[in-house]
């Protein structure tokens, strides 16, 4: 049970690419990861592939296109947390000495798949009565605004910040320099969330080479250690739960912090699942990175900016890059690696030593949600 490292990462540019397949995007990501890790692709011993809607044997199809097949491939679905689960499975596989070199892959193609808002499975009671994913968050937004005095302008500022961060990210096609008025003038999707409060539809793939300490030492390069991992599913919630706090985010974070032997104060920056502006608020607090209700002040003071004390979503997050479900979790690890190595260019956070990645996905009537994964990486 040794240490586990991310040796290399790669990702396709997140964009609307209706003419491109997951195989093509997956290969782009794997090639970059293999080069970044400086391994021979035939050294990969097992593949974990996260995706939600790409059909049977998606991981195997990508590997066949890449040109290397016949090894163990496991496909994972946990809604928006699918890619993070692929990272987690690779992590535990290596940690338990099952394999020395794994590929964690995330792929998703969304353009052309849905018209209108995405909803949970219609078999779910709330979905059948009209719940959509944006509305799930809009309901919490109104509650948070009522409780802590958050305004639409403050919500909008998160969209402005993350789109700006993405502007400096060559892996995003959605980066833009917009202002608060642009967000408030965009059409209402689900009150109080406007179009820019929501993540744009995107296709993409990301890959990470996850290795044992023995391999990291032998190959060298710039490996980053995975020091903590947590996974929870939503608990049954009878009675009146507090809709301004994401308990399942906290439970996944607790598991990761405990494993890593550190606390929220030691996290320098985080990639947080900002599928909607309100989500970044709920989760930054849910991770214990700031006190409950404190995000209102953080937004005003720019604490969450790249230049601030606790940068959130330096890559641009989901608001800035889009959210190809299976790929998102692995793309967060991509950003953590770039930041911790000092390779993030204009997005570079000064002195970044410990990074956290958080994804949360799915909706199940009566529970807090589907799955939440927290991963902590440490710099050299």
């Amino acid at each position, binding site marked *: 049970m040794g240490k586990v490292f991310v040796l290399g990462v790669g990702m396709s540019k997140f964009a609307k690419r209706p003419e491109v397949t997951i195989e093509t995007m997956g290969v782009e990501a794997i090639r970059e990861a293999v080069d970044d890790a400086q391994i021979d692709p035939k050294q990969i011993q097992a593949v974990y592939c996260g995706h939600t809607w790409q059909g049977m044997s998606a991981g195997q199809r990508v590997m066949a296109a890449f040109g290397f097949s016949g090894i163990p491939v496991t496909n994972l679905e946990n809604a928006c947390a699918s890619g993070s689960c692929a990272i987690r499975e690779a992590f535990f596989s290596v940690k338990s000495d099952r394999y020395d070199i794994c590929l964690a892959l995330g792929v998703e193609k969304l353009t052309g798949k849905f*018209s*209108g*808002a*995405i*909803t949970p499975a*219609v*078999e779910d*009671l*709330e979905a*059948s*009565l*009209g*719940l*959509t994913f*944006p*509305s799930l968050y*809009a*309901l*919490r*937004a*109104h*509650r948070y605004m*009522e409780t802590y005095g958050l305004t639409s302008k403050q919500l909008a500022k998160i969209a402005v910040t993350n789109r700006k961060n993405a502007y400096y990210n060559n892996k995003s096609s959605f980066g833009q320099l917009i202002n608060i008025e642009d967000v408030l003038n965009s*059409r*209402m*999707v*689900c*009150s*109080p969330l406007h179009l820019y409060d929501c993540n744009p539809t995107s296709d993409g793939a990301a890959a990470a080479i996850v290795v044992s300490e023995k391999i990291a030492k032998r190959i060298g390069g710039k490996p980053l250690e995975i020091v903590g991992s947590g996974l929870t599913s939503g608990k*049954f919630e*009878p*009675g*009146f*739960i507090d*809709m301004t706090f994401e308990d399942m985010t906290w439970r996944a974070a607790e598991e990761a912090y405990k494993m890593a032997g550190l606390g929220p104060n030691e996290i320098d920056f985080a990639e947080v699942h900002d599928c909607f502006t309100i989500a970044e608020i709920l989760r930054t607090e849910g991770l214990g990175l700031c006190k409950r209700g404190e995000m209102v002040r953080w937004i005003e003071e720019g604490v969450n900016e790249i230049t601030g004390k606790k940068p959130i979503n330096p890559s641009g997050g989901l608001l800035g890059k889009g959210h190809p479900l299976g790929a998102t979790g692995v793309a967060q690890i991509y950003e953590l690696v770039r930041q911790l190595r000092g390779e993030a260019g204009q997005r570079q956070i000064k002195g970044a030593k410990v990074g956290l990645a958080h994804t949360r996905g799915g909706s199940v*009537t009566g529970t807090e949600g589907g799955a939440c994964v927290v991963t902590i990486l440490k710099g050299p």
Partner: protein
Amino acid sequence: MSFSKDASKNVKPFREGLFHVDEDKTGYLIGSRCNRCNLVFFPSRDICNNCFRDDQIKVLTLSKTGILHTFTTVYQSRPGLKVPYSIGFIDLKDGVRIFAPLFDVTAEELKIGMEMELMFRNMIGASDQQEETLVYGFKPVKRDF
């Protein structure tokens, strides 16, 4: 969503076991309660989620009014549902929170803390069904001053 003004008696519930509606179009939601754990469930459960036993479970007629805990008005939804429509969570004094469509109220009128009352209406698009089915929902309690 497409709603009719009346709940007709020959329109099927969108899902069985959630509510009962009488001929005069009044009805109630069917919940259950575990008396050991003091938990109320909607939809009704025959085994308690907390103690995993059924010996203290009693079926419960839920109260017909509650307080609006939060809401949203939806302008973009899945195909088959007509927008805009409003949805929200209503806290009943039984100690259970109900997710439901909100009727007879505009986006501007909706406020956290409003008193809401249960009603039934026909809907096209619940559970992806193209035909009309009967659903439950809540509307503001009108106070005459």
